[in-house]
């Protein structure tokens, strides 16, 4: 019995939620704080819906207390012939400047959902050259569905044809309530297509890390443009970097280097960098020395033009330690 409890204790020590996970949970709850809406089948109509939440969260979700930035952008572009979409452009630029893709890694409920699905114990599809190329699909969707379709055809292309948040939170969440049973008859081919896509994304997210974020999310694509300008996130000191590639190897996103447009600033790479070249932006101002994730204790020995880490003490190597929840 003692052994069993000891195992549970060790498991909890290695798997307890990280700060990032806790922030993600709080953000998801705060973004959908209108719990009453899930019971009465009505969406929130309070003043906070003047503001956009930073992550992807359908404003037709019964729990949503803010507007979706992507949906608002498409709507504003649909009206662009009569009104300059200044407000939403300004909001997105502010989010990008402040947080960039840190939003994806820390605040987006859809990202949280995918990370939790990925924890299901199945074989996983690793990143490769193909996934790196496919990661540019979200830019194609951004241009085609988020910009061109709303401007030319006054149709919110991404919301209407792709968005899984809308299907799950709005479609299933809203229409699944008894109060909205009467609207079920209006469902047709569009909902069938979107629900099929939702199931494919959910199943795919079990095998592919952040499948939607990496390949389909135009909001992530937009925030990716601010990767160098964002105030928060991880940064790489190129003078300390030895190009050993451990950070890229550990990262589950399709990055070429830490902090590029694919990086969601989860911070997993900070612990493995042997030369402490990766830190949080503003860490000198905001963090004490012991709050920065400790790097692996490794030596770097150059071997014929390539760099390979040699662990000082293999048992203490942090990459074998706690699994970042």
């Amino acid at each position, binding site marked *: 019995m003692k052994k069993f409890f000891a195992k549970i204790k060790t498991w909890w020590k290695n798997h307890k939620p990280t700060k990032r996970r806790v922030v993600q949970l709080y953000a998801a709850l705060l973004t959908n704080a209108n719990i009453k809406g899930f019971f009465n089948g009505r969406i929130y109509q309070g003043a906070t819906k003047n503001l956009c939440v930073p992550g992807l969260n359908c404003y037709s979700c019964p729990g949503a207390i803010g507007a979706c930035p992507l949906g608002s952008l498409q709507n504003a572009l649909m009206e662009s012939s009569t009104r300059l979409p200044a407000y939403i452009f300004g909001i997105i630029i502010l989010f990008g*400047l402040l947080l960039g893709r840190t939003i994806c890694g820390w605040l987006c409920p859809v990202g949280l959902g995918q990370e939790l699905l990925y924890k299901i*114990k199945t074989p996983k599809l690793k990143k490769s050259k193909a996934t790196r190329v496919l990661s540019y699909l979200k830019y194609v969707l951004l241009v085609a569905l988020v910009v061109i379709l709303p401007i030319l055809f006054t149709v919110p*292309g991404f919301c209407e044809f792709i968005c899984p948040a809308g299907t799950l939170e709005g479609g299933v969440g809203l229409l699944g309530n008894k109060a909205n049973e009467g609207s079920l008859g209006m469902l047709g081919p569009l909902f069938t297509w979107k629900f099929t896509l939702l199931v494919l994304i959910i199943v795919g997210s079990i095998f592919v890390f952040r499948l939607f974020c990496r390949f389909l999310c135009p909001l992530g694509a937009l925030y990716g443009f601010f990767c160098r300008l964002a105030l928060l996130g991880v940064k790489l000191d190129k003078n300390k970097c030895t190009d050993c590639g451990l950070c890229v190897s550990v990262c589950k996103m399709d990055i070429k280097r830490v902090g590029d447009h694919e990086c969601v600033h989860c911070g997993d790479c900070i612990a493995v960098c042997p030369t402490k070249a990766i830190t949080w932006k503003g860490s000198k101002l905001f963090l004490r020395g012991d709050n920065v994730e400790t790097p692996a204790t490794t030596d770097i020995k150059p071997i014929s033009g390539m760099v390979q880490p040699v662990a000082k003490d293999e048992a203490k190597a942090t990459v074998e330690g706690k699994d970042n929840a």
Partner: protein
Amino acid sequence: MREEKARKIRWIYGICLSVYTFIVGALFIVQTWRIFLPGGKGNYTAASIAEKFSEIALPVWLWVAAVVIGGALAIAFPISKTKPKAYVTTQIQLERLGARLLGGEDSDGKAKKERKFRIALGIACAIACAVAACVALFIMLDKSYVAKVDREFFSGTNAVVDRLFSLVPWGLAAFALAIAAAYLIEGSRRREVQILKAELAKEGKIAKAPAKPKTEQVENRRLVLIVRIVLAAVALMLVVVGIVNGGMSEVFKKAINICTQCIGLG
């Protein structure tokens, strides 16, 4: 031995769970289409949804149980994490080898051939993607465009869906080409690395690797700060303009009403 056994058990269970996950996912999709197909629009009712999805309730609950068992197996049979392997990209390897090689070239000119091959491949891929993009733009901008789709099945399609149907094959082709090019380029880089390493091994060609130049960080930081300040000012100005011209109230109006397109009503 214990670790190997644990890996085997977890691997086998993972494969079984993966297959079952696909089956359950397929069941969801099949049931949805079974509701939709018989009558097209208007076939969704609380009764039909409850009936079709209760048929697959047992497999779904079994899947949930299988997931929980998978988690329990992970606790009961822990395995140590594999250490991530450092990998210096072929691009960095080429830079380092090229810097060490006097003249930066091999005597046979094979490295140059590989570089030319990569450039040609890159250009071909860029042209193919540009062609696909142009066709896509033409389809999107041509107001009279009508797609060749089965009107009996897709009776509810409109101008937008017509175009999206036509764009998908071009998009797939462009991405398939780009993925193929990425692998071919990587193969070419690896061959060039081997060529340069073989050249370095020859006598008299080895040069000391130059020290990595220090990045000019101070000037970069100033530029980034200026761009941040300018963008922040522009963003704040846009927000104010947006509030004044009614953009914010437009966002509010959209957010407090159900977005029928978002939830699948069209």
